[in-house]
């Protein structure tokens, strides 16, 4: 009895939780580092219009993006305010699209190449001229699956 009592008094039964925050912060930092926000910085202003008949883009690796819009304030002095095409991280013209598509195509595994979708992120205020040029270029390059990026809205009654 005496022995037992003594033992209980001496040992500390609680587990130290002081290292738990470290573990949680480690997790937090891991996710913060790993999470990819956006691969490309936008150099053109893109405010996509609204539409109701939307399809989700499932596999990110099978999608390449073409941005069309007016250059942002930072680039306005050099590139003017005319709508421009942005491929990757630089301003381009429709002739550069085949090479851009090919660069993406080689990163896609065999067997998935016919499921590549080009997402057109086009500003609503842009006129169709430049969009048509891009469409023609895409068709000539054999990329016929495209997705006009849009925001969700309800179907009109």
């Amino acid at each position, binding site marked *: 009895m005496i022995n037992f009592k003594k033992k209980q008094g001496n040992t500390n039964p609680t587990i130290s*939780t*002081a290292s*738990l*925050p470290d573990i*949680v*912060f480690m*997790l*937090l930092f891991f996710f913060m580092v790993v999470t990819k926000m*956006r691969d490309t910085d936008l150099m053109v202003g893109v405010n*996509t*219009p609204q*539409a*109701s*008949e*939307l*399809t*989700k*883009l499932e596999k*990110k690796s099978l*999608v390449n993006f073409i941005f069309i819009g007016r250059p942002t304030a930072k680039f306005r002095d050099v590139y003017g305010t*005319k*709508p421009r095409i942005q491929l990757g991280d630089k301003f381009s013209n429709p002739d550069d699209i085949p090479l851009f598509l090919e660069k993406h195509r080689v990163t896609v595994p065999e067997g998935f190449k016919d499921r590549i*979708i080009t*997402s*057109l992120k*086009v*500003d*609503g*205020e*842009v*006129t*169709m*001229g430049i*969009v*048509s040029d891009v*469409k*023609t270029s*895409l*068709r*000539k390059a*054999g990329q*016929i*699956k*495209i*997705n*006009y*990026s*849009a*925001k*969700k809205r309800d*179907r*009109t009654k």
Partner: protein
Amino acid sequence: MAKKSSRNRMSNEINAGSMADIAFLLLIFFLVTTVIAEDKGVLVKLPPWSDEPPQELTINTRNVYSVLVNAQNQLLVRNEPMEINKLKENTILFITNPQKRADLSEDPTKALVSLKNDRGTEYKTYLAVYNELKAAYNEIWEDEAARRFSRPYEELSKTQKDEISSAYPLVISEAEPTKFGEEN
């Protein structure tokens, strides 16, 4: 002496047990509030490019639903001006033709939607028009799914979907845009 003993009695460590709770709270807060930007859009299949001139097709004009969008973002549907909010309803009427009118499509399988725009048309308007045309077909398919299988279109099997889309095939033909109103 008295001072020293009192310092000894106090714990030098700050209780870090609640730190974990705070960190978890932060983690969960960010997990919940972070919205992973979803990419959604109107899926379109472009016609493949061919260098040969397109073959001449003789299509009965009653089967063609021509939609023109000009550089002023106005709509001309079958040679008559129209508001965009009437377009979907009108397209459904044209495709299904429930009263078998002589000026609307003979049969849904023969119906063809032709879309033409100017280079000066705003992209916003173009997409809205395309969206309405697609919405018309989606609505027809949903009605048909409810009628034939009494289930929403989304829940149908592949063969059932094919059955409906072959009865009401989505054909939107796009002509080369005219050069009007291009900005410089």
